[in-house]
């Protein structure tokens, strides 16, 4: 009886699995049977078919129905790197029944066409070709275009193959970015000016920031408790300014950690950030005079997947129980998951990011939070190097210029409102002209 009690459900499960498997195979067979044979591949290849976009498996052109579009105009796009073309086409005389237009492109002399754009009926007939990274436009290449009118059933009615009037080519100077160039030059000039002053020994004041001053205290706490320090350098790549700021701070933190001989853990999501973080920590141990204390396993790569990374770091927090957690860099939706877990584990937490949407979560769950630019400034605070302090002073000077612009615009706005003077209006426009497009 006991054997039957066990056997019946086992047999039932086996039967159920077999039935489901059989049912799925039957479905697959039915689906195969219901798929019509591909007409393109079955039909004999004629000359005309060779012009069809092979990659897209476009059916053979049906009998005359819709009018195809007319002339295609292709121009080189100004102020680009030679990887874009401005394409426009004439609508057919009769657009009745046309659902959309499909634009195909190929390199002149080649066989296969690429579908580069679908323009719905009624939408503008001019577009920039080259945005789609799957079908890039290469500089200096001659292209051919062909456009089809498409009916609601998906049938295509092709127009003539037309050779592009221009080939794409890049420009050395972007005429639309002169203002950006001037702003960059002013910004860099100010930074170098204060950088030079700082190098000459001019003392510069830095106001205290609680989150930065707490870093030493947090590392000291971990040392006293004999527990590790966890440092997460954000989840972004090396191109992110927040990541670079974080890696600079990591060097400072690692130096302190090396001096105090406290264990350090640096999990990484990006492989390149991982290599830079490893170099940074190794260098910090060397500078602290403790290269022997450097543990190669302290900086490690977890995974590139965002939430898998979070699951891994959360597990580390709960198992290793670090006394201090640093979250400095770029974070997205994982910020609260990390900080809340760290809070549960009882660690002192210092966070910093320039992600506006994530800062509120860090503020509510961490002991100290570096807001936006405070993260960039942290490195200068920690290092107290003249170069970095000078750079910080230069940034402040840029902010002063911005405040001056806004205040002046506000003042002229109020004056214009009160007196309606041509002079005030001219002054207001003059002030806005370097900024407003």
């Amino acid at each position: 009886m006991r054997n039957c009690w066990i056997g019946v459900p086992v047999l039932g499960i086996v039967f159920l699995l077999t039935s489901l498997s059989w049912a799925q195979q039957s479905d697959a067979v039915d689906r195969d049977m219901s798929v019509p044979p591909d007409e393109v591949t079955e039909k004999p290849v004629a000359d005309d078919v060779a012009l069809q976009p092979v990659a897209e498996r476009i059916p053979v052109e049906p009998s005359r129905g819709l009018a195809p579009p007319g002339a295609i105009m292709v121009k080189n796009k100004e102020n680009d790197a030679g990887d874009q073309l401005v394409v426009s086409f004439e609508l057919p005389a009769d657009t009745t029944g046309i659902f959309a237009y499909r634009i195909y492109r190929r390199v002149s002399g080649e066989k296969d066409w690429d579908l580069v754009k679908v323009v719905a009926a009624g939408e503008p007939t001019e577009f920039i070709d080259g945005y789609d990274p799957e079908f890039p436009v290469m500089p200096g290449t001659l292209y051919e275009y062909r456009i089809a009118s498409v009916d609601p059933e998906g049938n295509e009615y092709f127009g003539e193959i037309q050779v592009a009037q221009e080939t794409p080519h890049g420009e050395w100077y972007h005429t639309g970015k002169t203002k950006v160039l001037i702003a960059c030059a002013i910004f860099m000039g100010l930074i170098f000016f204060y950088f030079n002053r700082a190098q000459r020994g001019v003392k510069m004041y830095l106001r205290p920031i609680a989150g930065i001053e707490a870093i030493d205290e947090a590392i000291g706490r971990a040392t006293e408790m004999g527990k590790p320090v966890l440092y997460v350098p954000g989840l972004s790549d090396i191109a992110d300014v927040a990541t670079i700021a974080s890696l600079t701070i990591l060097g400072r933190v690692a130096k302190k950690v090396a001096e105090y001989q406290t264990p350090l853990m640096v999990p990484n999501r990006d492989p390149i950030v991982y290599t830079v973080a490893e170099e940074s920590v190794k260098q910090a141990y060397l500078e602290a005079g403790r290269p022997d204390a450097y543990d190669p396993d302290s900086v490690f790569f977890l995974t590139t997947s965002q939430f898998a990374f979070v699951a891994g770091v959360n597990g580390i927090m709960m198992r290793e129980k670090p006394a201090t957690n640093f979250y400095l860099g770029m974070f997205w939706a994982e910020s609260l998951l990390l900080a809340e877990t760290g809070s549960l584990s009882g660690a002192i937490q210092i966070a910093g990011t320039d992600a506006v949407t994530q800062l509120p979560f860090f503020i509510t769950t961490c002991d100290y939070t570096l807001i936006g630019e405070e993260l960039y400034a942290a490195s200068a605070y920690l290092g107290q190097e003249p170069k970095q302090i000078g750079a910080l002073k230069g940034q402040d000077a840029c902010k002063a210029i911005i405040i001056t612009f806004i205040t002046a615009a506000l003042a002229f706005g109020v004056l214009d409102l009160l007196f309606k003077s041509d002079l005030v209006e001219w002054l207001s426009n003059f002030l806005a002209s370097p900024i407003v497009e």
Partner: protein
Amino acid sequence: MYDVIGIWAGAFFTLAIYSFLYKENPIYRLAEHLVVGISLGYGIAVTYSNVLKPRLIDPVNSGGHWILVIPGLMGFLYITRFFPRISWLSRYPIALLMGTSMGVAFPLTMKAAVLRQLESAIIPLYREGMSWDVVLGSVIMLLGTLAALIYFFFSKPHKGPFFGFGSRIGIWVIMLGFGATFGFTVMGRISLLIGRVQFLLSDWLHLIK
């Protein structure tokens, strides 16, 4: 069949991850290690099929794109990290990448984060036909921007009528902004939770339709 297995696996691992809310446990640890391992393996496969193969191997194999060999070799230098004697070679691609990234990002940030913001801040406060609430909103936005900028001055003590008062207003403005962002983002997270609960109750348990 595979759908059923997928749903059961999805439900099991959802509950395994949620078990962390109680405490760290072996079931969570299983799910954690699986998701980290699988995502890493999947990432490698995706990188090969979406990046390496179509953008390097195929173009080079087809001939005519030999220039791609140079970035390919630069990328290959990363592997030298495994050989301590020549691991210094991996610094070249890192330096190139960081330098290029900063060079590209600098003008873009200047335009998007400075000039565009400044342009938006110096719009006229009043035009014919504007209602009073719109004018008031513009004034608050402008003064709030100024105050927040004052807060981010690092080389001046936050004392006195300009920097002291301005930075106090600035931090209030920033916190008000964060409060609004917090509420908005939490709503998004709640919708994610609803999606997961729907999966459990609908796809898995068939309790709701």
